[in-house]
């Protein structure tokens, strides 16, 4: 069981990594006016065939060989739908996959967004060969982190160098705090 939306994001992004994606886009938009929290995760990985897509929310279907059960997508889907929200996946073999989950913001059963900074920090610093485009928006304001900009500046310097790691961590946290304005989302 996942206790934060940010853990679902980490989990579903792992699917993109396993699909061989070189670019992963993570977009989180919070709207108090529309009472929605929308998460979109899209990648340019290997995608799924129609028959794989048909089984995607079946927990007893998995293409992996280490175990036969796959709960990642069912968890995320159920988490969104139990708030009265929606869940959808678009995918095309050879092109990529896009997962969209919409949560009703004010619903009592909505998980907190949680520590999205840790999720993004671990995705970025553990997968240096993948470009991440991360957008976080609250109402009408948002910020975007595109790791291609970091890579252009850093050249071959690793994200795991202490100064760089701390820079990315603070960059993520400061921008999020600025948008949240003390609200706990």
């Amino acid at each position, binding site marked *: *069981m*996942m206790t934060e939306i940010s*853990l679902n994001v*980490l*989990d579903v992004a*792992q699917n993109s990594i*396993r699909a061989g994606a070189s670019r992963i886009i993570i977009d989180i938009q919070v709207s108090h006016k529309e009472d929605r929290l929308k998460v979109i995760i899209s990648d340019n990985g290997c995608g799924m065939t129609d028959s794989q897509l048909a089984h995607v929310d079946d927990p007893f279907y998995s293409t*992996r060989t*280490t*175990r036969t059960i*796959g*709960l*990642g997508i069912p*968890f995320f889907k159920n988490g969104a739908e139990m708030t009265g929200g929606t869940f959808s996946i678009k995918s095309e073999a050879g092109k990529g996959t896009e997962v969209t989950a919409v949560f009703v913001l004010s619903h009592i059963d909505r998980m907190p967004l949680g*520590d999205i900074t*840790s*999720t993004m*920090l*671990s995705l970025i*610093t*553990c*997968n240096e060969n993948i470009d991440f485009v991360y957008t976080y928006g609250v109402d009408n304001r948002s910020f975007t982190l595109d790791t291609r*900009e*970091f890579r252009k*500046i*850093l*050249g071959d*310097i*690793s994200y*795991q*160098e*202490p*100064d*760089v*790691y*701390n*820079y990315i961590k*603070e*960059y993520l946290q*400061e*921008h999020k705090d*600025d948008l949240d304005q003390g609200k706990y989302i």
Partner: protein
Amino acid sequence: MKTLEELKAIREKMQGQIGLRSEDSDKTRVVVGMATCGIASGARPVLTALSDAVQSKHLSNVTVTQTGCIGLCQYEPIVEVMEPGKDKVTYVKMTPEKALEVVEQHLIRGQIVGKYTISSEGRL
């Protein structure tokens, strides 16, 4: 707030030190299982604790990475330590606190923390 200018300054500072970085083949790899099973049992705080400790203690010969499910879901969160030329050590049912012990004892002092390895479970 942090700007890209600050990142440029970090790069300028580091360019003088590039010769000090070790080759990847000499590095110890610390791998955390990050599939649904790992994440649901608390792997993210374990990974964060390991990364933070490796940065703050300047263990420049260690890289922390993540992997998928290795098929031992009941033992998650799992941390594997792979040192060049040595057998892989698999730590199971990790917590951030146990992970810090592994950093101190194993990564810094070279002593395997036997009480947390998979063989301590008495099944493998």
